[in-house]
């Protein structure tokens, strides 16, 4: 990790990053955080759908898919 701050959707397959914050408010933030995307969580990019979107991530021991649009709201340190 080179401590660069970026958005989750910008990462490449195989990258591992650390969640800093969720850059959106309301229901979407709540749902992302409740699924476990909380401060300090380590997250790995597992793969992308054949058409590039959505993207599969792994964190807290399980796999979750997010569309680019949603992943773009997750600020990470990479």
């Amino acid at each position, binding site marked *: 990790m080179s401590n660069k701050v970026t958005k989750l959707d910008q990462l490449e397959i195989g990258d591992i990053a650390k969640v800093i*914050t*969720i850059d959106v*408010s309301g*229901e*979407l*933030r*709540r*749902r*992302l*955080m*409740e*699924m*476990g995307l*909380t*401060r300090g*969580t380590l997250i790995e990019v*597992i*793969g*992308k*759908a*054949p*058409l*590039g*979107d*959505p993207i*599969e991530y*792994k964190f*807290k*021991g*399980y*796999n*979750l*898919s*997010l*569309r680019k*649009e*949603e992943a773009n709201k997750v600020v990470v340190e990479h």
Partner: protein
Amino acid sequence: MSVKTKKVKEMTLDDKRVIEVALAGNPNTGKSTLFNALTGLRQKIGNWPGVTVEKKEGKKRCDGFNLIITDLPGTYSLSAYSLDEKIARSFIIEGKLDVVVQIIDASNLERNLYLTTMLRELGANVVIALNMMDLLEESSSSIDVNKLSKEMGVPVVPMIASSRIGIDDLENTIESIYQKEQKPIRITYSKEIEEVLANVQEILMSIPSIPSDFDSRWLAIQIIQNDPEILTFLKNWNVNKTIIEKLLSFGREDYEAEIIDTKYEFITNVTSKALKRGEEKLTRSDLVDKVVTHKWLGIPIFLIVMWGAFQFVFAISVPFMELIDMLFGWLAGLLVDNINIGWLGSLLGDGIVGGLGAVLIFVPPIFAMFFILSVLEDSGYLARAAFVMDKIMVKFGLHGHSFIPMLLGFGCNVPAIMSTRSLKNNKDRMITILINPFMSCGARMPVFILFAGLFFGAAAGTVIFALYILGIVVAIFTAILLRKTFFKGKSAPFIMELPPYHTPKLRSATVAMWDKGKMYLKKAGTIILIGVMFVWFLAAMPFGGVEYGGPDTWLAAVGTFFEPIFRPLGFDWRIVVALIVGFVAKELVVGALGTIVGGGGSEEGIKDAILADEGFYPLNSLSLMVFTLLYVPCAAVIGVMRKETGSWRWTIFAVVYSTVIAWLFALVVFQLGSLMNLGL
């Protein structure tokens, strides 16, 4: 909830205590498996009041006590944003429950424990059923059950629900804790939040109208997070307006994030003590995913899996279908020949047995379809299919989850429309329901097979394939249209768990097949049977002397009346009659034609009669197939649409829209075909 509700409930009959239990848990943790293992077949399936979310209740007799078990919707949380969560939450608050069993996937402990923290904060009396212990072992991780129990302040029962291991332990644990008051775990938030909570709680304590079921700390936590349902609560309790305003003014955007962060910190602390992780590497599932969602391989694999599923359905069901056809053909013949009271033999033979056979013949493919879908779902692939298809679906105004109901529609539109319940956003769901009838269900197949086979010879397969594609195209066109007009807005986020791949279990696939197949049998036993008898009646009236299904019957009169509307499509009164009958159920179309053109009820006889008849030729059989493809599949679909959309307006819209579309497409086919003079 509170101590007061935990009275011992006596059952007058056998004098056993009744313990009321709810099953909570994240999706895919084995909730259904546990529920079935506990209750067996003693279940009642219905809906939660006022909404189309399934509610299952069951009973279990145990040694010295009885359990009444309610299955809550699978949720990750208990906030008031989604319908499922609202239902689960209010049932826990108001359900006078003795115990809430939370089933947890042991191989996914952290995220599962988040729901536990919410249940405990709510004040529920919780038992953790720590499921999937076999998978945990496989992953070479381990959980210290005693530590977990101590840290979370609740009993923990390890189990493997799919092998019925741990069920007895769970029952005994429920019995041993149901009268005990658990001390709520108290997650301590930041100093600032704790101060605000104290202030809010103080105000709440001074309001006498708040029912004792509600824990004041829980209420305070919800209030400062701007929980959307709190205002309704407060209003229902007739809390004074200025006090409500005062309370709500404590809410702040960032408290919510801080509270969730703190909960997960608490959980991380628990798991650091109770969970020993195996070596962290890519699991087998991750590796499979790399292939299944691969840039170039993903879509071909998807297509191959779908093709394989269809092959399976047909290969398995054809022998059974032939058997049913033979059996009912023989039985019908027997009745007609041997019952000498004229009309009775005909009613029993031609009408009921013949009609029933025409319906039951679809049981094998429909059951096979549900079986294979359940296998795909259990294996974990269906979630990947939604993942692979999401982007395309969104382009069409749909959602990744719309894909499964569309696929199911090829079997039967009734359960397909019911399966749209997995779509949590109302607009996504409405569009998915309204386009579903264009997915060509199994009942339309016999019409295609008959006419394509008779008139298109070697090209029959291509014609049928083109019809399926036409249905899909019309569905997509309709979806885009609806998204641009009545259901404007973006499709819901695609925050979906991709569960690890499992080896599917024969038992759960069989149970799912039976559960869903039953709906089809029910439809067959009611609507279709009534339809069959109605057709028989019209075809036999007026009594005395008219030839069954001949041109002097009431049936013919109805067809002749509507014929002018359909003449531009190339249909005479006999086809019109078959189509009107098909409005009740597509299964009846071929049979009705048989009744009218004659042919003695057998498939071969109908074929010969149609070939010999000048009223049928390639071009009008093509427009007949197009019309059959696109208009309302059956009366049962109308019923289920009404139920699932909750609106007569949209149901009527769907009926009128699809009939108009069917008429237009059939018109274009027939008129273009005539113009181009293809010699059809």
